[in-house]
């Protein structure tokens, strides 16, 4: 930070705080003042940029529409006023030394949405000219929300975008799907393009630890984002060729504006709490339940009545591991510039403790974006961000069995105290039920810290060879360094076997990008033509090292002295790399603003593809017809936009893994000379045919703008068919291999999207709202000869076969299991059933194939984890200085495998989870038809539809109120542009029938096994209070 700027900042803060500071002395210059109003109501307009053309002098209007440009040398000027949503205006003004000149403006509103510039691949376009399907989310929409990463910012805000959190762990991984998943075994995440730098979000580049992953994109500070564009159809994504099939998210960070010298301070502070706790049995109820489970099995009751009488409520282990956790964000930005140089320098610190003991996330980030017009022809600039994220992770989710922290808090007996009589933590769950460690001791003892440092920067130069021909070259680097430290002390249950286990991992990933493009623009009467061509190169190298050691004499040095360990386990390391060489071209043709055509192509050469298919060709074309500019509609004043558009094209998915086309040898040990020796043997056959997955997408869309853009509607239908799906298909085993990765399958996604934006003003009151609806249906068309396969099995204490079946002609995400048919009420019912060994009070399953046995052959389709439709509704109501905004977001028609419900029926080891559901258990004929009887000898429950629940929900994602300090008062503190205080509640409430922690959950991969909730880290409700200050 340069010292004059700092001085100015400190001065302004001081002025704001002590308004008695006298005004600065007059000089031999003049000033310009005025008010800007709108042409219809004559209302003042804030945030209008007023500049004296050809100078660096300028100012921005305050809430009352007034502005003041000081220290202007005397002379003749042209003053111009500009604001998005209004036609620019200018007028001459004469400045006399020592005096003020007045220059008032009246601006005419114009269709804001249409004149708005949107970022598209390798360029920008006017919204009106876009022929593809592009949704935009502006940074302002999530500015004041406590979102740790941009993925959360997208949720509910754009049609066709589904965001699912794997975990409530702050900064934890999430999954983003644009118009559904296209692939079964390759990646399904969209391509992120951050200020022109394409990034596939691979969390493995930030950490060597795969369990409870941290989102690598959390390194990008959402506060620095000016806008996000989501490219959905083939026309807009084909320019990203072999990476476009899953959609593209373009992120544009904030840059400086000429004529401004803004200083923005944003602060918020909040507290979080678990949005919902699960009702559990208290100690007394639990002891009685355990007794009953033993007596029902003919075993003696473990607790005596005298013991039970002293138990009371006992320990609620959820209360012990959940906490109220603080969240803080500080953001300081300097943005501005003159006609030739623009700057945006910002720094931020975001800190969020998790609601689960011992978990936290923080990010320190710095950004510098510069633009400089070196000459009329040459401009240069850069984007640079440095950030460091630190996560303290708790093993809460993704675990197959009951080892997770939240799971252990659920099954830990409420009869046990937090600490034993010696004051030490109760060691483990020794009474009844699942064995496991004290979750509080685990949360406090375990270290799982992951630090990722990311540098993402690009420098670019733009040169105008002729007025109509521009060349642009850029070079960028994305470097992530991840450091992981994991230590399980010998003092906790988890460390009892290893007697102290440490793991240290380092990962370093470096990607460079060189892009060289040329753009040509021509105007021929009513026709305009824009042509883009380019060559890009991108290369990555990632290396990893992981070391492990066990048996530490003590826990003092932990992970920081692996040498102290008695057992050093084998280290592992690897290095991988990939390269991409691409040629791209695009033609945009516009005839009379009525007929628009876009043709795009990209040729991608990728190192991942087999030698025989190294280059992929991805063409697309789209046309649009702006009917509102036709003569027959020109008089329809109420219609500001009516555009019919359609596109078709091919895009690819290159996330097929590395080196898959090459033959490989693997190692395995044998014993020779009474010692283990390493043998190398072929493990993969060369497959030079291996190539990308290809998605063909047809999109038909309609844009309608009504009443001067007071209402804007966008609707799209699409049909995406992905072919050449990579599948591991069976091959003759006489080859030495049983399967090979081949491009054989096909999957289809069809859907409908609707987005409506409205904007109304009633005097001092204005209302903005947007709603979106997305419907997507998947269907497996071809599995390359495999009739079907099941996936998503659980091992460990919860042992389940594949819970999801993928079958030709069926949708993805289909749960496959037994049908439960209530409980057996009487011995007669048991005798008449296919479960002769069952007892009354146990779950009855339907013998669907009628063979008199209940087994895997009785499974059928029992639900689907993908929603029928998802919705989002955002509203901002502004009245005088107050603003009330909220965002509702919901998902409908999806089923969730409720793991806690499953575990609460799991009474084999007495009680796996002492859920309060047990209060409604079966105790005799007619007492219950849902909750089985307590029985320690009961068989392990099977996967059936009784553990699926309707996962539909509607959630108030955010509710915020803010108050803008009165302009007069703010203006009194010299130069302060605005000041706003706000309060918000994130996850304010959720309407759902789902009984688990959170219906917005995916503890497993969203591609094939959506809607699985096996005791994930619960989400938090966040109350924040904040301040925005613009100087």
């Amino acid at each position, binding site marked *: 930070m340069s010292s004059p700027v700092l001085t100015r900042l400190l001065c302004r803060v001081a002025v704001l705080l002590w308004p008695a500071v006298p005004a600065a002395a007059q000089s031999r210059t003049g000033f310009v003042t005025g008010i800007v109003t709108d042409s219809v109501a004559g209302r003042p307009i804030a945030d209008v940029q007023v500049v004296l053309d050809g*100078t660096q002098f300028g100012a921005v209007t305050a809430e009352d529409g007034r502005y003041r440009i000081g220290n202007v*040398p005397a*002379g003749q000027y042209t003053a111009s006023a500009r604001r998005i949503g209004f036609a620019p205006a200018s007028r001459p003004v004469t400045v006399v030394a020592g005096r003020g000149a007045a220059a008032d403006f009246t601006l005419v509103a114009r269709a804001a949405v249409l004149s708005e510039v949107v970022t598209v691949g390798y360029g920008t376009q006017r919204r009106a000219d876009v022929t593809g399907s592009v949704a935009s989310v502006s940074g302002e929409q999530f500015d004041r929300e406590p979102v740790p990463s941009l993925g959360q910012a997208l949720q509910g805000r754009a049609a066709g975008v589904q965001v699912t959190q794997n975990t409530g762990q702050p900064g934890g991984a999430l999954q983003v799907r644009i118009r559904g998943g296209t692939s079964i075994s390759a990646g399904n995440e969209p391509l992120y393009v951050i200020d022109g730098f394409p990034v596939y979000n691979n969390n493995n580049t930030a950490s060597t630890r795969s369990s409870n992953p941290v989102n690598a994109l959390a390194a990008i500070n959402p506060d620095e984002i000016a806008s996000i564009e989501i490219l959905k159809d083939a026309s807009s994504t084909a320019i990203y060729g072999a990476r476009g099939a899953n959609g593209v998210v373009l992120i544009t960070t904030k840059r400086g504006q000429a004529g401004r010298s803004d200083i923005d301070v944003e602060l918020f502070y909040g507290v979080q709490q678990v949005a919902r706790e699960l009702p559990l049995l208290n100690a007394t109820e639990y002891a009685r339940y355990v007794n009953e489970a033993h007596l029902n099995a003919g075993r003696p009751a473990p607790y005596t009545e005298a013991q039970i009488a002293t138990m009371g409520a006992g320990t609620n282990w959820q209360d012990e591991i959940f906490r109220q956790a603080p969240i803080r964000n500080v953001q300081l930005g300097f943005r501005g510039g003159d006609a030739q140089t623009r700057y945006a320098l910002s720094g931020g610190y975001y800190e969020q403790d998790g609601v689960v003991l011992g978990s936290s996330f923080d990010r320190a980030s710095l950004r510098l974006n510069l633009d400089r017009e*070196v*000459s*009329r*022809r040459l401009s240069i600039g850069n984007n640079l961000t440095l950030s460091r994220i630190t996560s303290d992770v708790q093993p809460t989710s993704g675990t197959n069995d009951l080892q997770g922290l939240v799971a252990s808090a659920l099954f830990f007996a409420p009869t046990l105290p937090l600490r034993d009589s010696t004051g030490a933590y109760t060691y483990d769950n020794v009474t009844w039920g699942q064995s496991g460690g004290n979750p509080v001791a685990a949360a406090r003892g375990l270290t799982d810290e992951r630090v990722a440092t990311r540098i993402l920067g690009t420098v670019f*130069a733009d*040169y105008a060879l002729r007025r109509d021909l521009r*060349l642009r*070259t850029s*070079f960028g680097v994305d470097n992530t360094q991840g450091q992981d430290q994991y230590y399980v002390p010998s003092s906790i249950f988890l460390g009892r076997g290893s007697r102290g286990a440490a793991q240290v991992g380092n990962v370093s990933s470096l990607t460079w990008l*060189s892009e*060289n493009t040329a753009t040509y623009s021509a105007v021929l009467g009513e026709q305009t033509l824009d042509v883009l061509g380019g*060559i890009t*190169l991108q*290369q990555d190298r990632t290396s990893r090292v992981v070391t492990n050691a066990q048996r530490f004499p003590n826990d003092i040095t932990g992970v920081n002295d692996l040498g102290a360990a008695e057992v050093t386990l084998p280290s592992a*390391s*690897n*290095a*991988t*790399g990939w*390269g*991409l*060489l691409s040629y791209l071209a695009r033609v945009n043709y516009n005839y009379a603003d009525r007929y628009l055509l876009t043709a795009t192509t990209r040729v991608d050469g990728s*190192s991942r593809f087999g030698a025989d298919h190294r280059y992929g060709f991805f063409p697309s074309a789209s046309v649009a017809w702006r009917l509102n500019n036709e003569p027959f509609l020109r008089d329809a004043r109420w219609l500001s936009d009516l555009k019919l558009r359609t596109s078709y094209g091919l895009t690819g998915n290159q996330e097929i893994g*590395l*080196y898959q*086309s*090459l*033959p*490989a*040898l693997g*190692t*395995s*040990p044998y*014993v*020779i*000379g*009474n010692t*283990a020796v*390493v*043998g*190398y*043997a*072929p493990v993969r*056959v*060369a*497959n030079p045919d291996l190539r990308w997955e290809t998605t063909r997408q047809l999109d038909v869309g309609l844009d309608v703008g009504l009443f001067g853009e007071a209402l804007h509607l966008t609707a799209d239908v699409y049909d995406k068919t992905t072919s050449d799906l990579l599948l591991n298909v*069976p*091959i*003759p*085993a*006489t*080859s*030495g*291999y*049983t399967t*090979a990765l*081949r491009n054989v399958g096909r999957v289809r996604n069809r859907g409908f999207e609707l987005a409506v934006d409205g904007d109304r003003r009633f005097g001092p009151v204005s209302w903005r709202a947007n709603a979106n609806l997305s419907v997507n249906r998947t269907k497996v068309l071809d599995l390359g000869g495999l009739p079907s396969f099941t996936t998503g099995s659980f091992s460990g204490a919860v042992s389940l076969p594949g819970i999801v079946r993928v079958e030709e002609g069926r949708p993805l995400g289909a749960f496959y299991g037994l049908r439960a048919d209530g409980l057996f009420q009487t011995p007669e019912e048991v005798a008449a059933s296919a479960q002769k060994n069952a007892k009354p009070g146990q779950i009855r399953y339907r013998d669907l194939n009628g063979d008199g046995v209940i087994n895997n052959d009785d499974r059928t389709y029992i639900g689907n984890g993908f929603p029928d439709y998802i919705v989002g509704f955002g509203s901002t109501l502004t009245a005088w200085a107050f603003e009330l905004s909220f965002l509702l977001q919901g998902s409908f028609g999806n089923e969730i495998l409720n793991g806690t419900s499953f575990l609460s029926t799991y009474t084999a080891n007495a009680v796996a989870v002492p859920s309060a559901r047990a209060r409604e258990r079966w105790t005799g004929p007619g007492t219950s038809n849902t909750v089985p009887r307590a029985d320690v000898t009961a068989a392990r429950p099977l996967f059936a539809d009784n553990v699926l629940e309707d996962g539909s929900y509607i959630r108030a994602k955010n509710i915020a109120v803010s108050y803008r300090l009165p302009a007069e008062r703010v203006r009194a503190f010299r130069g302060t542009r605005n000041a706003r205080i706000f309060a918000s509640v994130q996850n304010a409430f959720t309407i759902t029938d789902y009984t688990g922690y959170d219906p917005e959950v995916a503890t497993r991969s969203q591609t094939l096994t959506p809607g699985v909730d096996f005791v994930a880290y619960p989400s938090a409700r966040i109350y924040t209070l904040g301040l925005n200050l613009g100087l």
Partner: protein
Amino acid sequence: MRRASRRHRRQLHLTRGIAMTCSNRRRSLVALCLTAGVAATSSCSDILVEDPESIVAPSNFYRTREDALAAVNGVYVELGNRSTINRHFTIMTDGVSDDVTITTGADRVSLDLYRHSAQNEVLDEVWPGYYRGVNRANAAIDNVARIDMDAALRARLVNEARFLRAMYYFNLVRWFGDVPLPVTETASLSGLAVERTPEAEVYAQVEADLRAAIDTLPATYPATDAGRATRGAAQTLLAKVQLTRGDYEGARQQLEAVIGSGQYTLFPTYAAVFDIATENQVEHIFMIQHKQGTPRAAGYMTSYYPVQSTLGFATFLPTTGPTGIYDAYEAGDTRKELYIPPNVTYRDPLGRSFPTTQPYVLKYFDADASRSDQDNNFPLLRYADVLLMYAEVVNEMDGPSGAAYAAINQVRRRAGLGDLTPGLGKDAFRDAVLRERRVELAFEGHRWFDLKRTGRLIATMQAHLDQLAAGSTVQPFHQLYPIPQRELDVNPALTQNPGY
């Protein structure tokens, strides 16, 4: 004012500069082009070629002596896999014989009871496992031969791989009959649907591999190479192949070479054959190697061990009764000491006691380790087998001569038994040898093969299953296993064995 005019001057200057001095413009243009050009050309050519830094591929392997050793070790690896000469081998040789009852696993039990179909998880693993071994051998044979290294070592390594390929094919042909016979490494995904090769051609390939191995492999190795295939192993295996095919003359030649080498002799006690302390010694000709504390510890052998506990699984039980192995021993046979007898109180190494209700096999048991971390090698070929094969071959060629008696009696005396009744006829002697093979080589993977090659499989197994009241019928087609259905589904060139 001053500021504005300075700025104005500079703008004028720049405008003039761009308009008038082309060199300026060219310079920035050239700089731009150079940057773009250098970036585009410097690495274009090789950016798309994958450099597999952390994978081993044929392109960077098969270059040195060490690579040759590792490649051949990779062929041995398959030996110890569950699908190959490990648990499934035991199931498909002893489990399906009259020696062992299998208690768990629906598909395993169906094999034991001769009710198996072409959809069986054991067969589904065995077939790919053996062909994986074959492909590994083919890869080593093809590629090691091309490595520039010490020629003698290279020849030895290639022939170790040929020995192993012969062993894999020998089991395949005995179990499945005609089988596909790839003898080169699979290098591409095309042309994988291969037909079955007639049995005789498979045997010819097996014999050719073994003859090459006999010509090249050393008689012994230093202790650091213990476990590798020797000439004696190749000779013993070839003899077994020839005996299976009725080529007594050929088998006799190989067996006499093994006996005459003076390299092998029986351990003084039967227990020493299975003692961890005396592995890879005088009587052992070829063992599957296992080592505690390595990923190659043995686990499946504790399937024989009594109770299901940290020490064992108790899922392979010795048969009893008139057709059972436990009651097939003559009185005083010390070989019966390697059982835990029924109706005793057994005290396990952890000090726990429990009563036994039936006998358990104690041949393979490492008392020092958990059930999946056992040290025991598996004795696939040993000298007692050679002596008994020799007695059989001599009897077939010359009748029960002195040489035949001498061979079988060596084995009987070591077991603490008297000599075989002298003066037996040829058929009676044949029966005696087979009975001796059963008790001497019990649970070592010989029984089903012996019954099959002597034409006794159907009658013997029918009698045994009748004794168990299993209700199964053993039919001639049971002398071959079905080709796994999974394989037929993906390879239209294959045909199923009759009866399945």
